[in-house]
């Protein structure tokens, strides 16, 4: 159980590092008009030219492989609840690495989501 917990935590660290790199790439590109396919493709072309995106891709892949190791040894219904730690890790990481604000509502909402996922875990 402890082994699974740390495997999933490691998978989360890989995964969130990847998400931060994705978001950094998205922030560096010009914001697309999502009603226009052309504008969206221009945005995707721009993010694909950024090394941060590819590095993020590698991190996500590492996270996925680590998660697979954990999944092979347990049920989805155990692995996913443990995964709920990721919300608070993502909130803190977004604040420190992306400068996103932690407001009262955002903190409360994130904690509620985490509690909900944990409840699903215990049922």
């Amino acid at each position: 159980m402890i082994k699974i917990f740390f495997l999933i935590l490691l998978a989360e660290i890989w995964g969130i590092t990847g998400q931060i790199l994705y978001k950094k790439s998205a922030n560096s590109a010009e914001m697309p008009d999502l009603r226009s396919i052309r504008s969206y493709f221009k945005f995707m072309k721009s993010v694909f030219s950024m090394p941060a995106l590819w590095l993020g891709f590698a991190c996500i892949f590492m996270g996925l492989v680590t998660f697979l190791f954990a999944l092979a040894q347990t049920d989805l219904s155990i692995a996913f609840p443990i995964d709920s730690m990721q919300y608070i890790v993502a909130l803190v990481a977004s604040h420190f690495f992306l400068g996103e604000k932690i407001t009262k509502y955002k903190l409360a909402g994130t904690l509620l989501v985490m509690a909900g996922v944990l409840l699903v875990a215990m049922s």
Partner: protein
Amino acid sequence: MRKNHLTLNMFLLIVMTDIGESIAQTFLKKGLNLTGITSITFANIGEFLSAAASSYFVWLGMLVFLLNFFLWMAVLSRIDLSVAFPVGSTSYIFVPILAMVFLHETLNPLRWMGIALIILGIHFVSKSTRADIKETAKA
């Protein structure tokens, strides 16, 4: 930092990525179950990886993950990661249902309470994006 209001369209886009993720994870788990390997040690890592790589379900799962990435980048183009991330938890509604149908895992009724908390949490996080915009307008 992009202060974009979480619109219904963006919310639905995030829900789509969650559905995609649920499908991908169910394929992966199905593929891994079919390998018949229940415990991974340093001795059988190679065997595990080659069994996983020869599973159609694992590749199908990877393909869905890749397609999902294109949707997710559209989300990140306008929504803060700290908003998109918790809102992306609607998969906790889909995954137990998919696991019940395809993997025959059991569903406890208490989960509905968890699901209710998740919905309330998503509402609060969504509300935070509106509060942000108000503050910006004032400043």
